[in-house]
């Protein structure tokens, strides 16, 4: 895998890296406790955060590291950044490396933004004169010219992040370590960050990127690595890695489609379950873009109902409704008698962008108003994988591309 990149020499080479944390059973923080219990001192758990990790990252590569919380990916990044010492194995790094484990490290709320920029840039590895000379570029990128003499505590969190990101970007080392920085900022600024990553990638920087966001992994990374419990599960092209990540991470979703909660069942109609199915009726938790897909909602009517309306919607992780459908458009659904089971199926071709979507299902007495007979939010989830041609956006509409020459 990644054969096309083997020509370049690795700038980061990790060999058999192992890192163990000692976590004491009981934390002794005072001398008295040590003196009173000198023998208990040695009781600690060894937690192997990284176990025999080996990977070579080539120059100019955009390399993703993905894994669940606690899988060791941040520890790996901190070892790479030189914040944690390593127990065994080797890390070789060619060239200056700029870590942004967190944006705005060393930012101090009581100092003016101007001072913070300089301090942060120096902390990230610039000299004072370099920091001064890049100051204008930083301010311009952050779009905060009028606010540079404001104390940082008077900044909104969005401004804070913009400033921090601007500094980090301007530090401009040949190797960048990036941890989850895309989770912040408004949409416009996020887009700007994405653009900046694209620019950095184009200019040949080596970027190591740790994230939960499979969308950005697929969008940016040349290769990605999946780690679980400190071990490397796989290193390969992003689509295959994100698929594996989703399988590990969302395995529990398979079990979630039945009703939960302690509330008494609704009097008229009760949603008994909902799930995603493939075109051949198999239950699925993930689907590729462009593939046909079906949402199935099981409803039991406890009392008779006349022309109820079935509805569903898919929400993105930001809570926006990506797709909604109701049975109303197809005319009255007719009469359901007490004790009757019904299944609503919504077939559609999945043209949603890659990401996770949560299904909400509802049964309403009629189309008007907000009354519902039963509603279940987040009753099931689906992961959309990237297929060949999607180039970004909320949906990937079926389309043809034509270029005319004249």
């Amino acid at each position, binding site marked *: 895998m990644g054969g096309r990149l083997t020509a370049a020499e690795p700038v980061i080479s990790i060999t058999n890296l192992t890192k163990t944390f000692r976590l004491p059973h009981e934390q002794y*923080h005072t001398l008295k406790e040590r003196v009173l219990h000198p023998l208990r001192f040695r009781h600690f758990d060894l937690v192997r955060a990284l176990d025999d990790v080996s990977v070579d990252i080539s120059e100019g590569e955009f390399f993703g590291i993905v894994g669940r919380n606690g899988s060791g990916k941040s520890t790996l990044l901190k070892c790479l950044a*030189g914040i944690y010492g390593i127990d065994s194995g*080797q890390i070789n790094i060619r060239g200056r490396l700029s870590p942004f484990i*967190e944006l705005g*490290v060393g930012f*101090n709320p009581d*100092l003016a933004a101007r001072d913070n920029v300089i*301090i942060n840039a120096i902390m990230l590895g610039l000299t004072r004169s370099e920091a001064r000379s890049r100051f204008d570029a930083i301010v311009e990128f952050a779009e905060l010219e009028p606010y540079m003499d404001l104390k940082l505590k008077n900044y909104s969190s969005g401004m804070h992040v913009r400033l921090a990101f601007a500094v980090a970007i301007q530090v401009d080392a040949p190797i960048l370590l990036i941890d989850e920085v895309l989770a912040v900022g408004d949409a416009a600024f996020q887009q700007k960050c994405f653009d900046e990553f694209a620019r950095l990638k184009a200019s040949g920087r080596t970027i190591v990127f740790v994230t939960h966001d499979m969308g950005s992994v697929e969008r940016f990374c040349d290769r990605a690595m999946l780690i679980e419990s400190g071990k490397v599960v796989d290193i390969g092209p992003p689509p295959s890695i994100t698929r594996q990540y989703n399988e590990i991470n969302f395995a529990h979703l398979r079990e979630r489609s039945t009703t939960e909660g302690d509330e008494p069942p609704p009097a008229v109609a009760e949603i008994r379950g909902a799930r995603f199915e493939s075109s051949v009726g198999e239950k699925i938790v993930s689907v590729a873009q462009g593939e046909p897909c079906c949402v199935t909602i099981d409803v039991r009517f406890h009392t008779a109902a006349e022309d109820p309306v079935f509805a569903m919607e898919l929400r993105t992780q930001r809570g926006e409704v990506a797709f909604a459908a109701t049975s109303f458009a197809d005319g009255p659904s007719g009469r359901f008698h007490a004790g009757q089971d019904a299944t609503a199926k919504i077939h559609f071709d999945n043209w949603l962008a890659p990401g996770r979507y949560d299904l909400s299902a509802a049964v309403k007495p009629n189309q008007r108003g907000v009354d519902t007979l039963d509603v279940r939010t987040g009753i099931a989830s689906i992961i959309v994988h990237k297929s060949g041609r999607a180039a970004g956006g909320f949906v990937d509409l079926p389309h043809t591309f034509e270029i005319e020459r004249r």
Partner: protein
Amino acid sequence: MSATAATSYGPSALGGSIRRFVELTLTLARTEFKLRYFGSVLGYFWSLVRPLLFFGVIYVFFTQIINVGKGIPHYGVYLLTGIVLWTYFSEATGSCVSCLVAREALIRKIRFPRMTVPMSVSLTATFNLGMNFIAVLVFALASGITPRLSWLELLPIVLGFIVLATGIGMLLSALYVRFRDVQPIWEVISQVLFYSSPIMYTASSYKGLEHVALLNPIALMLTQMGNAFVHPPPVATHVAGRIVYEQRMRDALTASGGPLHLAIGLAIIPALFALGWWVFTREAPRVAENL
């Protein structure tokens, strides 16, 4: 700045580049300095006012109420200088104790030479010392002491204080990460040091214990300070019926009881610095995890 040593990649006390070390230390110290004084109305002057007020209280108490300072020539100058030097020492060591823990955010997120943290704290205190010394000089001249060549001895004395405080600071900051009781313990030791060092009195008040008490390098340096800075060299030893020489500000060599005593006292300074250095460099790679 390309190659990284193959074997020991990771955080360290000192890091590779001296230039970066110095720059970081300066930046951290400057930040600290700004933070401390820019938020308050009187700003920097608080660092001056504090030891001056303390001096005022002690001066009035010891000269007007219990007469300790009466026989000491230029007692006020001696007292103020002692207090300024002590303020430096206690500020530097006291803020070093928790300095690593206080900068947790930095240490857990960025690779930089860890030693810059206690160094910068000590440097901030040194800025203050420098400013306070201006007040000391003004006061000394106003009190009628004429400048002389032996004032230059203040430089090695101040340097001794800096080395001592930084050494102890490194030691305390590294230990505090593991043992939180370092803080109260150090507060107590500080108190003991304050009262057992000749700040409010001179070394001659130790009487029989003088040779032991002057093994304390702070006592040694203050005594020498009195001799070189405050006290004019030729002085009559007797006034009828009263033994005035006890109040004289002898040099550290005479007061400590000979070269051996002096050497032991002085050796404590580099020894503590070396100990602090050793402990700190040993702990530095794991500080981020232990915080």
